[in-house]
């Protein structure tokens, strides 16, 4: 019996969005009379925090406090169209739509503030603290609640905006495969360290250390949530998960989580990450999608680390204890 350690590295790219028949999302923004900015969408939040990051992008683009931005989603009677939350697209597509809507709304907000402050619209700035200020004259300022009230009751103007972002459809050339299927590329590199028990075939993932490049982080804590969740999902794919463990046979299908093994707290490795930011050409504030990618690099990194540890490459995932023991047995009989 021996416990053998190995290290594996893997580097990946991941595309943001798609182009299926054109890939659009829309956003509408309006201000209430008391300075709430409501962003209306039909986008769905899968638990990753979309509603929060979209409110952040909206607040940034409007120049108002995050607390004043409300997300109203997802109701097909009121929310404008969204293709859906998938393909690592939502922050990129919806974010861009929100920025466009915010620019239209902000223009009205600034014009009304300029009237109230008796200033030129070009001289007004926002710093996200709720005030619209005259550049260089910090005392000449007006709060967004007063701007909203004035817009509605004094000037009869609506502070509102419409936004749309679409990746146009690109037909695939059937002969060469020429296509433009995505908007930008995020990247990841993971170094995995594992320990393999050659007696039982069990693999312990000791650490997953990864560098990611995702254009710009809107909310670093939510990015880290994606990283940790994705790392564990990738680890589960590499080592545990299959609904048909003897694929292509269909036997032993699981009926619940007691039969479909996922990593629990005891299996969690040390997860470390750094995030680089090189703004993308077309993302909102340079954003790229991170959603799907985080599960990808750990899979080959772990598989390579296992090969590095035991000296046998196993090219089918999940790499279960049974596969490891069979591979070791075969290696032993070849060498013996």
């Amino acid at each position, binding site marked *: 019996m021996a416990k053998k350690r190995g290290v594996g590295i*893997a580097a990946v790219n991941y595309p943001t969005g798609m182009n299926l028949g054109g890939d659009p999302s829309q956003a509408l923004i309006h201000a209430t009379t008391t300075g709430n900015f409501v962003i209306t969408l039909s986008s769905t939040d899968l638990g990753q925090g979309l*509603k929060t990051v979209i409110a952040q992008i909206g607040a940034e683009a409007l120049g108002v406090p995050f607390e004043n931005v409300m997300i109203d989603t997802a109701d097909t009677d009121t929310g404008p169209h969204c293709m859906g939350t998938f393909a690592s697209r939502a922050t990129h597509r919806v974010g861009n739509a929100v920025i466009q809507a915010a620019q239209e709304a902000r223009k009205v907000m600034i014009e009304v503030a300029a009237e109230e402050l008796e200033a030129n619209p070009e001289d007004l700035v926002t710093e996200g603290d709720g005030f619209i200020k005259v550049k260089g004259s910090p005392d000449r300022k007006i709060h967004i609640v007063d701007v909203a009230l004035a817009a509605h009751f004094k000037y009869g103007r609506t502070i509102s905006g419409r936004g749309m972002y679409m990746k146009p459809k690109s037909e695939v050339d059937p002969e060469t495969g020429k296509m433009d299927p995505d908007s930008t590329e995020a990247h990841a590199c993971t170094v995995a360290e594992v320990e393999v028990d050659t007696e039982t075939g069990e693999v312990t993932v000791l650490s997953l250390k990864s560098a990611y490049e995702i254009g710009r982080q809107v909310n670093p804590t939510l990015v880290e949530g994606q990283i940790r969740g994705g790392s564990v999902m990738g680890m589960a794919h590499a080592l545990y998960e299959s609904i048909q463990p003897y694929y292509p046979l269909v036997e032993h299908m699981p009926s619940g989580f007691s039969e479909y093994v996922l990593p629990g707290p005891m299996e969690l490795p040390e997860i470390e990450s750094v995030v680089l930011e090189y703004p993308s050409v077309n993302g909102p504030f340079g954003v790229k999608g991170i959603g799907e990618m985080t599960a990808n690099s750990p899979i080959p990194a772990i598989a390579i680390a296992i090969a590095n540890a035991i000296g046998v490459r196993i090219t089918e995932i999940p790499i279960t204890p049974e596969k490891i023991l069979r591979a070791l047995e075969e290696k032993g009989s070849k060498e013996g």
Partner: protein
Amino acid sequence: MLAEKLHVVGQSVARRDGLGHVTGKTVYVDDINFKDMLHLKMVRSPVPHAMVKGIDFTRAERVPGYVRAFTHKDVPKNIYTILCLIGVGPDEEPVLAVDRVLYQGEPIAAIVAETEEAAIEAVSKVNLELEELPAVFDVEEALQPGAPILKPWGANYFIYEGHHCRRVRFGDVEKAFQEADFIVEDKYQTTPIEHAPTETTGCVARPEPDGRITVYTNTQALFFTLDNTALILQIPFQKLHFVGGTVGGGFGGKVDVIVEPIATLAAMRTNRPVKYVFSRQEEMQCSSSRAAWRMYFKDGVMKDGRIIARQITSYSDSGAYNRHSPYAVTKHAANVAGPYRIPNVWIDAYCVYTNRQPASAMRGFGVTPASFAIEMQMDKIAQVVSLDPWAIRFINAYRNGDMKPHRKIVEDATLIEVMQAAAKMVGHELPEKFSRMSSWDGKEN
């Protein structure tokens, strides 16, 4: 790198829904109940391939609380394909089986009852007369002559504009293989995987007094689901009102349109709210999975580590029906050569049908298996040419301005930079030629 001064983008503000999620206060679909609500459960095929000769509801009808059953005859446009909205065809999946089932767990009839227990009980009392057929589970066997044919167009593969697979052709791999110092080949395989969301797929459809139907759903794609539901039920789009937005985990499993059409139909026909939520067993055994992929790689490599040719034949085990798999195969084809500059690339990627529960969208959609195979292959190449695993990747890393095999110019590449950062994290000192390398080096490397 980041010039703009931003105020709230880049800040870790607390998520607003977090407290609701962790205290159990967030309302999910299964929390939605109406007092006269019915429950829908599905009669499913117990075998992977069979002719349906008869369905007998006699014993089910005697179960207290049984309301009614639905078969394919009740579904206005029973045969559909999800991607029809973007021009992908032909229609090929029944909402409820007509005369044949292609996978174990395929829906044959829906039953609605006063309680969930009564619906489950009634389903168990339905007598199916099935004539089993030979099934095929292996993607390469499915493409052999003599395999049971699963599709009306007479083949077990999706047809891409007249081709039997999605092709990528870039440069001349055959010529490059002759010039290569080494040929490195291998086969890589992944297996079907469950999305495992905390919240299973489900919806509640409620008829409103004004004649419309409100559907509360945990779909990942609200309008896509509404549009498909209206088309399947052949009703005007304005009859439907979908409400959602809070999903207890998706991972691609809730992009299919499975529960909403039949629940909406049942609500329309009974004029009562209908709930249809998958059990965990249905989620694992009947709903879409991640496709299993088989990928054959053949690379031509020079002694200095440069990959000069890559030929790949991939098979997606898409299961019994299209769902989103035809598009996953295209996405796979665009990515399976990897983030490397390889001047000659040849890819044949097949979308293959078998007698397995349908595969569909899942996190990484055709790219996750590709990344597994690419990086395993890079490691093998490193060993063949006696380079360390960092070197092989730096030598081949793509740059901004390169042309990918699918003839898209690379922009926003940062593979080199993430590798440099990862090496630093683990204390691996890179040779200067790699530590000074940049994705903006251009083509002079």
